[in-house]
C-alpha cells in the first residue's frame, strides 16, 4: 500500500481535531449522543476489519457489537492518544482472532513451516495443483482471495489486513498485536507467499 493510499484511508476516518476532541470528551463523560455519533462514523470500518479477519458476516456483526459495547462501557477509561477508531479496532481485532482460534479448535492453523514448504515448490507445480474446474473467470478474484485467506491462521490474516486495508506500518501493527516487528514481517511475508501461490493466475503474470 502506498503512503498516499494509506494517508487517504486514514483521512477518510478523521474529523477535524477540535470536533473529535470535543466529541471524545463528551463520550468519556458517558454522553449517549456522543457514543451514537462515534458508532455511526466507525461502524462500517470496524465491520470491514472484523469481516476480513473472520470471513463471516454474522460473526463480524457480533464482533462489531461486542467491540462497541466494550468501548461504551469503558468510556471513562479511554485515553485519546491512539484515537477512538484505533482503540475500537484493536478490540475488534482481538475479538476476531479469538473467534477464529475458537472456531478452529484443535485444528492447527496453516503455520509458517507449511507455508515455507509451499514457498520452495516450483511455480509450475503450484499451478498444476490447481483444479482447472476451480478456475473461474475474471471478476472472481474476491472469491478466490477469500478462499485463500481462509487457509491462513488468524494472526497472518490479521497482519495482512492491518497492513493492506488499514495502511499500518510494521511498527504500528507490532503495537496493535503486541508482538515484535520481526514477527510482523515474518507473518506478512508468509501470508503473501501463500496468497501469491493460490492467486497466481490473478496476481502473478503481469510482469
Amino acid at each position: 500500500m502506498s503512503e498516499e493510499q494509506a494517508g487517504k484511508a486514514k483521512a477518510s476516518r478523521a474529523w477535524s481535531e477540535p470536533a473529535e476532541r470535543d466529541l471524545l470528551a463528551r463520550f468519556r463523560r458517558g454522553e449517549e449522543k456522543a457514543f451514537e455519533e462515534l458508532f455511526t462514523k466507525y461502524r462500517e470500518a470496524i465491520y470491514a476489519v472484523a469481516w476480513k479477519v473472520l470471513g463471516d458476516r454474522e460473526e463480524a456483526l457480533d464482533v462489531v457489537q461486542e467491540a462497541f459495547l466494550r468501548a461504551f462501557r469503558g468510556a471513562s477509561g479511554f485515553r485519546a492518544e491512539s484515537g477512538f477508531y484505533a482503540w475500537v479496532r484493536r478490540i475488534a481485532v482481538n475479538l476476531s482472532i479469538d473467534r477464529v482460534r475458537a472456531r478452529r479448535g484443535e485444528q492447527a492453523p496453516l503455520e509458517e513451516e507449511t507455508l515455507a514448504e509451499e514457498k520452495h515448490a516450483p511455480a509450475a507445480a503450484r499451478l498444476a495443483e490447481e483444479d482447472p474446474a476451480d478456475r473461474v473467470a475474471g471478476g472472481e478474484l474476491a472469491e478466490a482471495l477469500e478462499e485463500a485467506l481462509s487457509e491462513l491462521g488468524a494472526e497472518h490474516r490479521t497482519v495482512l489486513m492491518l497492513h493492506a486495508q488499514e495502511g499500518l506500518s510494521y511498527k504500528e501493527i507490532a503495537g496493535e498485536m503486541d508482538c515484535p516487528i520481526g514477527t510482523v514481517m515474518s507473518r506478512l511475508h508468509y501470508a503473501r507467499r501463500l496468497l501469491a501461490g493460490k492467486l497466481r493466475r490473478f496476481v502473478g503474470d503481469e510482469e
Partner: protein
Amino acid sequence: MKNECVELNELVSAYADGEISGADLERVEKHVADCAECREFVAACRRIDDAVRADLVPPPVEDRRWDAMLVQLKAAGGQRPAGRKWRFHPARVIAFASTMAAACLLGLAFVMLPREPEKPVEYGLEIEAGAEPTDYQVVMIAAPEGGLSMMVIVDIDDQEEDTEVEKPGGKPDEKEAGGKPESGEK
C-alpha cells in the same frame, strides 16, 4: 529459487513495503534487479494488498440492522458487567450516610443519657444437679456508674452452714449471701 532468495526471504516482502533501509535495502535492491522470481514476488505483494483493500468487500449491512444494533448497545451499555470498578452513586451514598448517622446518634444517646446508680440485684434459682436436687442461689452484683457486674452462684447448703441457719432447706438469708460473694461459692 536461489540460495540468496531463501536468505533474503522476508526482507523481500519488507522491501516491497518500503520497510527496510541501509545495507538491507542495498542488498535486496541488487538482488531483485537480478532475480526475476523475486521481482515477480515484489509485484505480487503489491497486487495482493490492492486486492485485499479493493476487491475484498464485505457483504453490505442494512441501515435497520445498524439501527437495531445501536438500540441494543444503548440498552446494554447501562448494565455494567460484574466485577467492574465501584462508581459514585449519590443515592447510595446518602442512604449509607443516613444509616451511619442514625447508628451514631443511638450510640451517643445510650452513653450520654443519665442513669440511676444500679443497686446489687439478687436472684434466687434452684438448679437440679445429679439425682438429688441441690439449692443454689445466683447473686448478681451490678456495680454503679457502669462498672463491672459480677454473678456469683452460692450453694445454699454450704451457706447455711457458714451462716448457721437453723433450718436446712429453708429460705436462706439473702442479705447474708449477697454480702460476701467471695466466700462460700463453689
